[in-house]
Each structure stands twice: as structure tokens, then as C-alpha cells.
């Protein structure tokens, strides 16, 4: 691993991609190897004041900060209370070894288990909080823990804390020398990096990015966002817990300040300086800040000022941190494109293997499948065989649903039925309540009254992810894709978001999802989009991709909110063919649109909504089949809608039946 240094650097740079980029598994071990080599060689380089002692501190603080990096870089959760778990780890080790005489290994285990348990308990309270409330609530808890530790001096030693022996008896040998401690720190860091890698690999990484980019879309795709964020919060606590459990035996002392607000903020400073979202961000930040402090802080109280100055300079001028700046400089030097503009060349699936070339053997083989919803319900998809009750209506049934926002009744006593194998259209002017109704069906909003049934089962009390897992899929007026991921990754997410737990991951299954997504794209003649990033797509393409994503999980009911808006006539014709094929495969489809030609061509039934109520319903031919019927439908409506309704005078498609 030491031979090919240029390859090592390349791997380091590649593997150190920020969360926004695909992280290659192939680069993972290389990165780890390089990191270990660097860590091992560093103290031997003879840098001034960079002693083994300082090195161990750097590595352990870097490890602690890495947990915050996982949360902030991958899920966008900023915790200003990281020291909570640093302190918890330290105090548990101190108490168990010093007070109760536990062996070190048992104490380490207790420290980690105890901290994770604390994180689980606090996480249940904290994780549901949004944005800055989450950030500051963590800071508040760190302050509270700090104060609690002061409040019980007979147990915790009060403000002066607890002293520990610097000897670490690991059973196989005793660590007490600086070198020994440094090696222990490096081993802990490697464990941390492996946990990090595991947490963001493949499916897990994609889901985290989805949650960060768009929590609502994640819910609608079937991600149990609360549970997922809670898990990340607990996993992230592992890093400071492990670091704390070693750091304080190493320094021989743990005080309440180590669990407090200032320590917490300093941990955040480390990842900001090193680079948020880069796996090594915390370590680089710790190296820079702690080493600078050691260089300057021989006399006088410079340490806080150095922290603040470096922190602010980097936050202002190098938003991607030091690693980001170096990477940017490197790519500019080498002449490659900047990471943020990663084009097709940079496209690599999040699993590390290159996306198979389009039109490859597999895609051809899959072409025989009917378009959507055929055959492959093999894995993950919940079984939907059999109706709950023979007397119950199959498909989607909405009964007497109402919803008010404040004093405004957006939906009033609406009932409708979407049987399997039919397309039902919902039309009405803007503000009629159509999208609200779809939100009520997909679980984004909870109705004030009424019920939503799927194949006879009552969904009313279920949240959006559960409904998705039962077979309700939807698209949005404005497509919600994860811009930073490729189209293929977005589509794969469509399937894996709704299957099992966030933690469970199978490579074989991911490969299958990938192949299926390729096939779906090929069917839609969209294969050339596979490797593009979603952010680079046009409106029509985004609409199609979102539709494909909604359909990948073989839903029972599809809710399509204005799928044709923004599409060209050709695209609309293409979309119609798709939806008809979807209907023929047995899905129940609810379409909202303003384009009556489009509706007429597709729909079996039409519901007309106005001011939150269904004002008319009937077969499509009857309601939108003729010009007269349409005129009466829209009577009393202003010209904008009527114009909207006939954009193409569409006689060249849409054969009146």
C-alpha cells in the first residue's frame, strides 16, 4: 500500500468526496489504508511540537467530531451538543473503573453502551425538532449535563472532575506509554472510519441524502424519516462516546466542562475547519486547530482566539473546509472538472460499480416485461394479494374526507373511488382542493374527518411512509428528485426507500434494483439520462423520472399531480401511452390535470372539484367528451382555465371515443 503513492493520493481525494458526491466503495479501503499510514507516520515526521501526546489528542478529538460530521454532512442535522456523548463516555469510564473497579474493557463497553442508550433516549425527544431547534436543544442538553455533573460532587467530583489512571489494561497488554496511547487512538479512529463507511454505504447513503435533500419526498417514498434520523443520531453518538472513553483515561482527568457547551461548539468547529461531509474532516480539523494551538499557546490565553479565528476564516472563505479547498485546488491543477459540476465522467453509482452501459444485455432481456407493475414483485414489495373483505371495494376508496387549514375548508366531504385497472381524473380550477386531496390520500396531511381505504383496509391513521409501503405512490406538481444523485440512483431509491429498515442492506438486492431501474429507463427511452445528475435535467425529463420512480415499487394506487404540465405534445402522447399501460397492468390511477384532451384520452371516470367539493362526476366521455360538455363543465369559470384546457386543440391526438 505504500508503493504507489500517486494512486494513494488519488484514492484519498476520491474517497474523501463530500456527502454530495457518490462515494466509491472501491476507494474506501484505499482511503482507509492511506489514512492509517498517514496517522502512523505523522508523529515521526518531526513537525515542531507535534508530539505523540498531541497526536493522540488530535486523533481522538477528530474521532469525536466525526460523529457530528456524519449527522451534518449526510443528513443535514447540526448538533451543537456533541460533547454530551464525549462527556458521557468519559464519565462512565471514570466511574466504572475508579469507583467500582471494573476492568478497562468492560468499562469501555459500558461507556459506549451507556452513551448510545442516552442518545436513544434524548434522540426520541430531539430528532423530531426542526433545524435550529435541534441544534440548540442539543447545546442546551450539553449545558444541562455539564451542570448536572457539577450538581452531584459526591459522585462526579464536582467541578474538579474525576482523575483516572493513565494506564489502560487491555487484557492482552498494558498501555501507558505515549506511543501505546497513540496506537490505541489510531485503532479507535480506524474503527470509527469503518463504522462511518458502513453507515453511508450504498442504500443507507442514498436514503440519508434523500432525507437531507427533501424530507417530505423521503416520507412519501416510504422512508420512516423519524426512525432513520433517530438511528443516525444514535450511531453518531458512538464516535464521541468511543473518543471520550479513551480521551479521558489518556489525559488522566475528566471534568464537567468536557461535556459542556464550549466543548460541543469546539467539536463543531473541527468539522467546519476540516470539511463537513468529508470522512476525514474531523481529523484534519483537529490536526490544524490543535497543532496551531500547540505552536502558539505556550504562554497566554490564545487557544480560544485561535479556535475562533481559524473557525471563522474557514467558514467564510472555504465553505467546504480545508479538505474541500485542497480538493478544489487539486482538481483545478489536474484540470479535471470541479466536483460540484460532476458530469458523466464522474458518474459512478453510489455502490462503486460503474453503471452498466445503456442498452446492454440485461436491458434487452428485460424488454419483454410489460411496462410497469409486471412480474417482479419479488423482494421488498409488500404482498397485496387478496382483499380484506369480499364485500369491500378494491382499489382506493375515499369516504367523506374533509380538511381545513385555519378557517379555510380546503376539502369538504369528498368521496371518490379509484378501482384497480382504471384511470380516474380529478379536474377543477386552481385552488379547488385537488392537491390537498392528494395530500390527504398520500398521508402528508391528516384529514379532519373521513376515511381513506386501500383494498378495504383503513389507512386514515397511517403516516405517509406506511401508506407508501402499502402501495400508494405519488408524484408532485413540481418533481422532487435528489438533485445531487444520478437518475439511476434516484430510481433505485424509489424502490429501496420503501423496503425494510434503513439499516438493512443487501448488495444483491441493490444490483437488482439497479438493473430494474435501467430496464425501466430503457422502456421509457430515457436510458441516456441514467448517469446524469437529477439537478441537470429539464422539467419534462424530471417529470418522467419522478413518474418512473413512483412506479418502480409497483404501487397499487398511483396519484399523479399534474403529470402533463410542462410537457411537450410529444411527451404528453408518450406519457399517455405509459399511463394506459400502467392501467392495463392493473393499477388504480388518479390523475390531476388541466388538459382536457389528455384527460379525455386517458380517463375512465372524471370527478370535477370546486371550492373543496366534488361538484360533478361521471364517465369521461360524458363530462369531457364533447365541446359542449366541456363548456358546461367550465361555465362560470374564467377564461384562463378554459384556455388552459385546450392548449393544442388536440385533434391530432386524443381520438374522441
Amino acid at each position, binding site marked *: 500500500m505504500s508503493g504507489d503513492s500517486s494512486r494513494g493520493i488519488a484514492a484519498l481525494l476520491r474517497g474523501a468526496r463530500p456527502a454530495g458526491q457518490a462515494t466509491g466503495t472501491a476507494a474506501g479501503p484505499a482511503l482507509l489504508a492511506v489514512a492509517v499510514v498517514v496517522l502512523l507516520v505523522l508523529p515521526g515526521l518531526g513537525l515542531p511540537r507535534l508530539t505523540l501526546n498531541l497526536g493522540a489528542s488530535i486523533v481522538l478529538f477528530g474521532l469525536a467530531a466525526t460523529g457530528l460530521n456524519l449527522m*451534518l454532512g449526510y443528513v*443535514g442535522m*447540526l448538533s*451543537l451538543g456533541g460533547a454530551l456523548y464525549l462527556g458521557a463516555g468519559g464519565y462512565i469510564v471514570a466511574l466504572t473503573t475508579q469507583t467500582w473497579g471494573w476492568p478497562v474493557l468492560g468499562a469501555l463497553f459500558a461507556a459506549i453502551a451507556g452513551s448510545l442508550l442516552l442518545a436513544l433516549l434524548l434522540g426520541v*425527544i*430531539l430528532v*423530531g425538532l*426542526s*433545524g*435550529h*431547534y435541534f*441544534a*440548540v*436543544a442539543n*447545546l*442546551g*442538553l450539553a*449545558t*444541562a*449535563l455539564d*451542570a*448536572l455533573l*457539577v*450538581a*452531584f460532587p459526591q459522585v462526579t467530583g464536582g467541578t474538579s472532575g474525576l482523575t483516572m489512571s493513565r494506564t489502560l489494561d487491555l487484557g492482552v497488554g498494558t498501555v501507558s506509554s505515549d506511543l501505546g496511547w497513540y496506537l490505541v487512538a489510531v485503532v479507535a479512529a480506524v474503527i470509527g472510519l469503518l463504522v462511518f463507511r458502513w453507515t453511508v454505504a450504498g442504500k443507507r447513503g442514498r436514503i440519508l441524502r434523500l432525507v437531507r435533500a*427533501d*424530507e*417530505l419526498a423521503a*416520507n*412519501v417514498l416510504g422512508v420512516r*424519516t*423519524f426512525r432513520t434520523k433517530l438511528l443516525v443520531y444514535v450511531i453518531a453518538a458512538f464516535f464521541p462516546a468511543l473518543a471520550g472513553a479513551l480521551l479521558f483515561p489518556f489525559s488522566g482527568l475528566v471534568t464537567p466542562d468536557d461535556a459542556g*457547551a*464550549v466543548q460541543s*461548539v469546539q467539536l*463543531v*468547529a473541527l468539522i*467546519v475547519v476540516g470539511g463537513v461531509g468529508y470522512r476525514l474532516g474531523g481529523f484534519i480539523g483537529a490536526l490544524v486547530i490543535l497543532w496551531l494551538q500547540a505552536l502558539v499557546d505556550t504562554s*497566554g*490565553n*490564545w487557544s*480560544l*482566539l485561535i*479556535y*475562533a*479565528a481559524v*473557525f*471563522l476564516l474557514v*467558514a*467564510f472563505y472555504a465553505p467546504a473546509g480545508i479538505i474541500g479547498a485542497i480538493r478544489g485546488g487539486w482538481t483545478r491543477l489536474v484540470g479535471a472538472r470541479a466536483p460540484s459540476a460532476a458530469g458523466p465522467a464522474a458518474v459512478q453509482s453510489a455502490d462503486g460499480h460503474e453503471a452498466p452501459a445503456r442498452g446492454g444485455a440485461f436491458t434487452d432481456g428485460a424488454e419483454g416485461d410489460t411496462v410497469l407493475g409486471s412480474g417482479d414483485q419479488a423482494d421488498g414489495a409488500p404482498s397485496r394479494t387478496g382483499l380484506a373483505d369480499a364485500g369491500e371495494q378494491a382499489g382506493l376508496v375515499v369516504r367523506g374526507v374533509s380538511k381545513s387549514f385555519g378557517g379555510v375548508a380546503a376539502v369538504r366531504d369528498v368521496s371518490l373511488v379509484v378501482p384497480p385497472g382504471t384511470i380516474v381524473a380529478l379536474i377543477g380550477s386552481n385552488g379547488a382542493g385537488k*392537491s390537498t386531496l*392528494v*395530500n390527504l390520500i398520500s*398521508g*402528508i*396531511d391528516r384529514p379532519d374527518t373521513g376515511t381513506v381505504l386501500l383494498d378495504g383496509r383503513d389507512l386514515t391513521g397511517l*403516516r405517509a411512509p406506511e401508506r407508501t409501503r402499502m402501495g400508494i405512490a405519488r408524484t*408532485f*406538481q413540481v418533481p422532487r428528485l435528489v438533485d445531487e444523485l444520478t437518475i439511476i440512483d434516484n430510481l433505485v431509491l424509489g424502490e429501496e426507500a420503501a423496503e425494510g429498515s434503513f439499516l438493512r442492506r443487501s448488495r444483491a438486492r441493490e444490483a437488482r434494483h439497479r438493473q430494474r431501474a435501467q430496464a425501466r429507463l430503457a422502456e421509457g427511452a430515457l436510458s441516456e439520462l441514467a448517469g446524469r445528475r437529477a439537478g441537470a435535467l429539464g422539467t419534462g425529463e424530471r417529470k418522467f423520472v419522478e413518474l418512473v420512480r413512483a412506479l418502480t415499487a409497483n404501487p397499487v394506487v398511483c396519484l399523479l*399531480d399534474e403529470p402533463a404540465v410542462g410537457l411537450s405534445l410529444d411527451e404528453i402522447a408518450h406519457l399517455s401511452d405509459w399511463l394506459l399501460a400502467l392501467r392495463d397492468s392493473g393499477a388504480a390511477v388518479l390523475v390531476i390535470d388541466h388538459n382536457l384532451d389528455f384527460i379525455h384520452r386517458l380517463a375512465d371516470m372524471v370527478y370535477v372539484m370546486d371550492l373543496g367539493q366534488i361538484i360533478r362526476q361521471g364517465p369521461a366521455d360524458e363530462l369531457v367528451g364533447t365541446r359542449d360538455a366541456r363548456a358546461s363543465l367550465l361555465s362560470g369559470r374564467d377564461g384562463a382555465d378554459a384556455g388552459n384546457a385546450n392548449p393544442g386543440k388536440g385533434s391530432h391526438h386524443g381520438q374522441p371515443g
Partner: protein
Amino acid sequence: MALFLQTIFSSLVNGSVFALIGVGIVLCYRSSGIVNLAQGETFMIAGILTAKMVAWGVPLGFAGLAGVAAATLASVLFERVVLRTRLNWAPERLIIVTVGVAFLAEGVADRLVGADQYGFGNVLNGSPVIVGGAAISQQGVLLVAVTVVIGAGLVWFFRRTLLGQAMTASAENPQASSLLGVNVGLMRQISFGLAGLLGGISAFLVVPSSTVTFNSGLPLTLSGFAVAAFANMTHPGRALVGGIALALGEGFVGSYLNPTLETPLAFGVLLVAGVAYLARAERFAGARRA
């Protein structure tokens, strides 16, 4: 009974400081959407500067005025120099920036004046007011009165005056307000200035009884944020009530249980209350409109 009253009195004094800092955070958030975790530093700046000037022989009145002015100026400069050009940054990045500035202020103060405790005398030195065996200093009465007047004044200002309504409008929808002719930037600057002023005033009135150090800011900011969060980050009046309530909670825990439990317990209760309060407002799917 004396203990009971005494607890209420001292809680009123402490609560006034929490309320003033909290109202400052509310003002900043309303005008910019930024959680200003550097707000407590205005207290520290005013307190230390006043103490230093008094030590150099400047009369208390002038020193206090200079301290309050410095806090106000620092807050305005913070908005102008640091935040104004970065309002399009992601909220979590801006929180980090405000924390960084708070750290910078502490770091500079640490270098300049060290870790000593600083203080200065009261403006009102008359004998304390005694009610039912409990005492509250005249300065304490002044602080509470000032806080109530400021809180009521702000509520009136935002409801009744054109400038106040312009500030509310620019907080709720900067683009639209800007199109309607409201100078959003100026509104933001006034808000930050006011926030600094409140931090300075609270320092001038409470440092005589509590002293100030280079790192007094962050803990105050935390209490202030708790208060501001209770006010949903938007209502100065509710922040006032929240500040007093927080201090009363801390005070009674301190008087009747264990003074060292004040902070953890108060924060714990507050967090649970805050979470319960916020959970009500959350949508079913926990996110914005589709």
C-alpha cells in the same frame, strides 16, 4: 414566606435578563431568519467595557452609556459586516457563523482582559425595598421595570406603528416587502441594533449584582434562546413572559431543592415543554407543503 417572596424577587431580576436577551434573539430572528447565538456577547461587551471604564475613573453614567453604545454598535456591525452578504447561506451554516463570532468575541475578550471577574456599582444605591421580609434592591426594581416597559413598548411598536409593521412585514416576506417599498436591510439593521441595545442595558443593570467574565455570553445566549423558542422566535411579549417563567422555575428549584440543580432541571423542563409545543405545530409528514 420570606423565602418564597425572596425567590420571586430574585427570579424577577434574573428573568429580566433572560427576557432581554431572548427578546434580542427574537428581534434578530424576525428580521433575518437567523438564530443569533452571538446575542449574549453584547451583554459581555457592555459589561466588561463599562467595568473597565469605571476602573479607569470614568463616571458610571458615562461608562454605562459607552458600554451600551458599544454593544449596540457591535450588533449592528455584526449584521452589516458578517451577515448581510451571507443571508442566502443555508441556515445551519449561518448558525455556525454566529457561533464562530461568539467564540471570536470571547477569544478576543480573553486575550484583552483575561479570565477575571469584572463588576461595577449600582446606579441606584438607596436601601433595598423590603416586602414581607424579602428584599429587592432598587436597582433590581429598576431592571424589572425597564424590562417590562421595553417588552410592552415592543409589543406596542410592532402592533401600532408603521415602522413596527414594516419590520413585521419584512420579517414575514422580505421579497414582497421590498417590492412594496420597505427597506428590508434597514429594518434588519434596526432590529440588530435594538437587540444589541437590550443586551447592553441588561448588562448595565445586572452586572453590579452578578459580575461578568469573558465567557458570560454563551450561557446567557442559551437561556435567551430557550426563551425565544418558547416565543416561537417571533413574539417579544411572549419572550418576556417566558424569561420570567424560566427564572421562576430556576429560582424555586434553587431555593427549595438544590441550587446546583437549577440549570439542568430548568433546561430539562423547558426542553420537554418546547418539544411538546413544537410537536403540535408539526405537520403529519413533518415537512413543508407538497
